[in-house]
């Protein structure tokens, strides 16, 4: 009982969030707009969690996660469109291809340090974008569609535009799995090693860590998660073209994570909620056509976060909690030792 209570207490924040994500879609009734938004929030938060592993935890900046996201999307679309493969199997294929690619590419790329690595990740996504825009097998410039298959509603669930709820809850369930995975990774040997590498390569090596290996593990896991996100995205959007590999897409994952809190498992989901709420309000305000304005505003926001609170919204939150905890501990200490607080000790 005590144990269950502790688990409950330690994860209170996560449980409240989860409850909201379960209740809100039901509460808004048949409002498909809000259902769509929640699905987007979950998908981008999921890929953000993946990006957070390699960049937030292991400290290797990737500006090219659209590569793995795009592969996840194309795997589902190509297999579904051409061979009638159900999306769930397509997603598995996407995971396999993305992790293999992450392994092959990054084993080489991780010889590069810092900015050079970041630029190389960007180049990988750009190469894929160019390749997919001319490759006729995957639809070249026209992209590729997947069609709704009314004969098998369960397996082709997402394509059903009339009812988003089942797909929303499946996306939520997958997000929860990813979240739990990332949270347990953070508290595992892997997570400790990633953070050591992030803070100091030299320290990591001096205590027996092979940074190259652990960075590749992080990238493979990260790519797998991004591919799941891409697979969900294409089922929902029903169409994908080479634009999916563009820097704009990579930057969404960066943005949601950095806004919410880099290196914090809650960061991507909080960031994604804020990103979408802002994005939507701005679209309402400025209209859909002048979409440049919201990008400028997000750019400014990103700069503010990086300069003033590099740990994002969660950083502000943590600081508040810590300050309260410290104040409480201090007050308790005073009670324990009977020492008067500052300002009242003028007797001597």
């Amino acid at each position, binding site marked *: 009982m005590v144990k269950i209570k502790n688990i409950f207490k330690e994860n209170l924040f996560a449980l409240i969030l989860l409850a909201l994500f379960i209740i809100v879609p039901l509460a808004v009734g048949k409002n498909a707009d809000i259902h769509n938004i929640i699905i987007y929030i979950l998908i981008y938060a999921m890929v953000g969690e993946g990006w957070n592993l390699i960049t937030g935890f292991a400290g290797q900046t990737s500006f090219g996660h659209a590569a793995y996201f795009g592969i996840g999307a194309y795997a589902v679309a190509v297999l579904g469109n051409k061979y009638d493969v159900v999306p769930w199997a397509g997603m598995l294929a996407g995971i396999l291809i993305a992790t293999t690619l992450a392994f092959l590419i990054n084993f080489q790329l991780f010889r590069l340090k810092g900015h050079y690595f970041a630029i190389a990740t960007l180049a990988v996504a750009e190469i894929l974008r160019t390749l997919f825009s001319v490759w006729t097998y995957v639809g070249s410039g026209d992209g590729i569609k997947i069609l709704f298959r009314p004969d098998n509603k369960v397996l082709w669930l997402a394509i059903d535009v009339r009812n988003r709820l089942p797909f929303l809850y499946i996306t939520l369930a997958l997000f929860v799995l990813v979240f739990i995975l990332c949270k347990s990774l953070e508290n595992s*040997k892997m997570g400790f090693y990633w953070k050591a590498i992030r803070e100091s390569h030299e320290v990591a090596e001096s205590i027996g860590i*092979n940074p190259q290996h652990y960075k590749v593990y992080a990238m493979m896991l990260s790519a797998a998660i991004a591919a799941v996100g891409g697979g969900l995205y294409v089922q929902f959007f029903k169409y994908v073209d080479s634009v999916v590999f563009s820097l704009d897409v990579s930057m969404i994952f960066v943005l949601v994570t950095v806004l919410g809190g880099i290196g914090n498992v809650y960061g991507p989901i909080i960031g994604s909620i804020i990103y979408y709420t802002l994005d939507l309000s701005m679209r309402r305000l400025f209209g859909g056509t002048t979409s440049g304005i919201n990008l400028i505003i997000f750019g400014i926001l990103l700069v503010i976060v990086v300069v003033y609170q590099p740990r994002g919204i969660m950083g502000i939150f943590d600081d508040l909690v810590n300050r309260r905890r410290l104040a409480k501990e201090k007050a308790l200490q005073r009670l324990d030792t009977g020492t008067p607080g500052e300002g009242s000790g003028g007797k001597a």
Partner: protein
Amino acid sequence: MKSVIEIRNLTMKFGELMANEDVSFDIENNGIVSLIGPNGAGKTTLFNCVTGFYKPFSGKVTYWDEAGVEQDITGRPTHEICRKGITRNFQIVKTLSEMTVEQNIMTGAFLHTNKTSEARDLAEGVLRRTGLLARKDILGRNLTIAERKRVEIARALATEPRVLMLDECMAGLNQTEIKDVMNLILDLKAQGLTLLVVEHIMEAIMPISDKIVVLDSGKKIAEGPPQEIANNDEVIKAYLGEKYHAKSKKS
């Protein structure tokens, strides 16, 4: 006495600069070998060569593992050398600043376990041995310099090395803190470790060392037991100064 590490003709160049020139000495099993010499003598460079941070220009570093098997570790990767049982600290402290003291040490302890709970247990033992238990929840970046140096040693210890290499781990500490570190080093020796210690503070190094190696401008100028070194004229000229020379003669 048997050696655990044998350094032979080690030479390290940075461009034209000879940071280590033809240095040879042995580190005896379960001994405390101290490496001294003025600033810029090449002590840290030698650490970096032995632990694989630098590939030496020439020379050889040999290691005998627990089973007594001879291994050429010259220029091997640092993490591999650590896994063989040689761990070092850094003269310029590199505390993992976003981690607590306990987490810093657990990171080292993970070398011998995959389980977080076991790493935590191992870390607790190290926290106790190094007197850091009361500070275990403090973030690295909030520590004093003395505490950082101690965490640095503790993190290295958590990898359970056979050979611990300490680069100026007493610099900047006060008298009591130095005494604590001296006692810790002697404890570690009593527990069977071998130590290579770089230190400037003669009063601390002389009483605990089994052997002292003196470097000057990259070259080894003397090697021997502390008393002999304290009376060696070349060493005195290069490094110690008349004051310590006279003092050690009196006693």
